[in-house]
């Protein structure tokens, strides 16, 4: 028997080698070669389409939809319902800041494999200029008409060619009043408490703009400033004063805070609300909207340049703008979804903590969307220095 195998070396167990005939060896090799060539072909396809145009929209819905998304930002049930209804399986990858998302999209040059990304409004013009986003086909999104008039045609995308609003919100703080005795009314108080009572137990958002903004908002400076003088002051405050007291840079501190990780957190309203909803003793925690000034951000559904599932992506955007679906999603993430009449419906449905979701006109007057400008590089630098100073 053994003689038969002389001259041929195969990596197989002894028992398998005994059973191995010329025929099934060849068959096996053929399968291996075939699958190899399929793989090569698949790679070839990838290079053909990668970096080039996206698959065109307007046909059948694909079986897959890939999100590049903020964490905990949609009800998992909504994704499941979508898959059930349209057959497209959803995959989600998350980022903690617009800067991080842009970094990855720029590096991928259209081969990221993501279909949908959810940037904040002010980042959109430059993302469009740099070819990171595809144009939307609003004909495929009839539910766009549900978006309240005032939230359409925003300055960053005047004709909603590249984006439709997902939701909007603001920034404030959440604290545990058993640990923080003083009353926090302004960003100045926030800083004082972070450096005092809550030293070593404070988290700030892991986003460069929001950290320096604590200083700007507290001192009545436009947080879109590009003036060297103000940036220097902000750097001194954030890096030398505030940073050594920071426990973590966390964009989603709500639930962690109510689990006892932090005493005070800078937080987005919906995330803070998720924290309150997750705890048995919500009375222990206090939410405050940033004052005297604070952020107004609007996140938007956009389709990534090079998206391979554009029909599924349009179907998703249309689906999520359906009033019923939108309301279900709002119950989960706690942000105003910008649809006509959503506030009344949420009230009628008896959702909790609606003062953290919908803001009064006076509150909205104190909010400012800021801007992405040439100070951006400096903000990232300050943020890096702050992180290093926190660890020292």
């Amino acid at each position, binding site marked *: 028997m053994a003689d038969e195998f002389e001259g041929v070396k195969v990596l197989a167990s002894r028992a398998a080698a005994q059973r191995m005939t010329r025929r099934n060896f060849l068959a096996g090799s053929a399968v291996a070669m075939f699958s190899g060539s399929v793989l090569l072909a698949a790679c070839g396809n990838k290079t053909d389409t990668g970096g080039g145009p996206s698959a065109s929209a307007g046909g059948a819905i694909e079986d897959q939809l890939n999100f590049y998304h903020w964490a905990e930002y949609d009800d998992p049930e909504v994704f499941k319902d979508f898959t059930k209804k349209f057959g497209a399986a959803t995959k989600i990858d998350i980022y*903690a*800041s617009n*800067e*991080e998302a*842009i*970094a*990855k999209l*720029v*590096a991928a040059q259209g081969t990221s494999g993501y279909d949908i990304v959810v940037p904040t409004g002010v980042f959109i013009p*430059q*993302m469009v*200029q*740099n070819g990171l986003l595809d144009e939307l086909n609003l004909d495929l999104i009839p539910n766009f008409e549900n978006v309240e008039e005032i939230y359409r045609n925003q300055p960053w995308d005047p004709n909603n060619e590249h984006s439709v609003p997902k939701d909007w919100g603001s920034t404030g703080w959440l604290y545990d009043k058993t640990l923080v005795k003083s009353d926090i009314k302004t960003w100045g108080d926030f800083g004082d408490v972070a450096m005092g009572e809550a030293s070593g137990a404070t988290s700030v958002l892991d986003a460069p703009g929001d950290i320096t903004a604590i200083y700007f908002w507290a001192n009545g400076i436009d947080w879109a400033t590009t003036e060297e003088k103000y940036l220097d002051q902000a750097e001194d405050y954030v890096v030398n004063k505030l*940073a050594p007291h*920071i*426990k*973590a*840079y966390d964009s989603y501190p709500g639930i962690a805070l109510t*689990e*006892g*990780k932090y005493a005070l957190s800078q937080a987005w309203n919906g995330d803070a609300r998720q924290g309150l909803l997750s705890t048995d003793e919500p009375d222990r925690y206090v939410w405050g909207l940033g004052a005297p000034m604070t952020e107004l951000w609007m996140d938007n559904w956009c389709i990534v340049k090079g998206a391979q599932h554009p029909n599924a992506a349009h179907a998703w955007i249309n689906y999520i703008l359906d009033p019923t679906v939108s309301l279900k999603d709002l119950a989960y993430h706690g942000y105003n979804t910008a649809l006509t009449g959503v506030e009344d419906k949420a009230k009628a449905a008896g959702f909790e903590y609606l003062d953290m979701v919908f803001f009064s006109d006076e509150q909205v007057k104190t909010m400012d969307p800021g801007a*992405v400008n040439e100070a*951006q*590089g400096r903000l*990232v*630098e300050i*943020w*890096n*220095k702050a*992180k*290093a*100073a*926190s*660890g*020292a």
Partner: protein
Amino acid sequence: MLVFFFAVPVLFIFYYSLGYKPDIFRTIATDHLSFDRYVESFSSTFRSVFTGTLQISLIGTVLCLLIAFPFAYWLAVRVPPRWRGLLLGLTIVPFWTNFLVRTLGWLILLQSKGPLSGILQDLGFISNPLNVLDTRAAVQLGVIYNYLPLMIFPLFVALDRLDPALREASKDLGANRWRTFRQVTLPLAMPGVVAGLLLVFIPLTGDYITASVLGGAKGNMVGALVASQFNTAQNWALGSAMAVILIFMILGAVVFFGAVGLIVRAVIRRGRRIDLAMEPA
């Protein structure tokens, strides 16, 4: 293979480190090259994080050695051979789980509302909830746990190969246990010790998973700083320069401690030298 998967990426990193970041929508440009990024890297930011990292990795490596040595010795010498395989297998078990998952395990364990905190409070060891997450101590604990097996294996191999007859001979010649350990076992296990130190020190210094999961703002390590330059700040040039510096600093540290080790050994040998010429004929 070595050229393709090691040399080429490292050369690219070096090349990128000479470039610059043109604007927020581009990660790298190399149309004019300079060493400016290295100057930037040596800023106080990088230095303070690097010092912290070196502290964590030196303490971690030494503690790994101190914990692993008695264990490896016990395993190689005291444990009956039939149990040895099983115990060694148990040491490997954590490796069947992903590094990140193991670290997340500590995250759950160390939470202030987590099980460890509860037990310690019930037993009265601490009065307030455990507050160790997001500190350097948590990172220290995490790295020791994660890299300990890498110290145990080479030590075990070195000690296992040691012929028991050498120890018996040492005893027969009148050396006590401590002297046998110091003059016979330890010198012969030295290759294992050195291998273990290198295997732990080098990856530990560049580790960033443990630091980003357990460290929060306080336990920042240089690996995380490099990663944040690439991923978040999108400054590939600066990230590359930091990575190159990190590579050279680790190599430098290894060479430095290697040299110190050799000098110490030479000094000890000199002190112990038996000068035959001095012996009466």
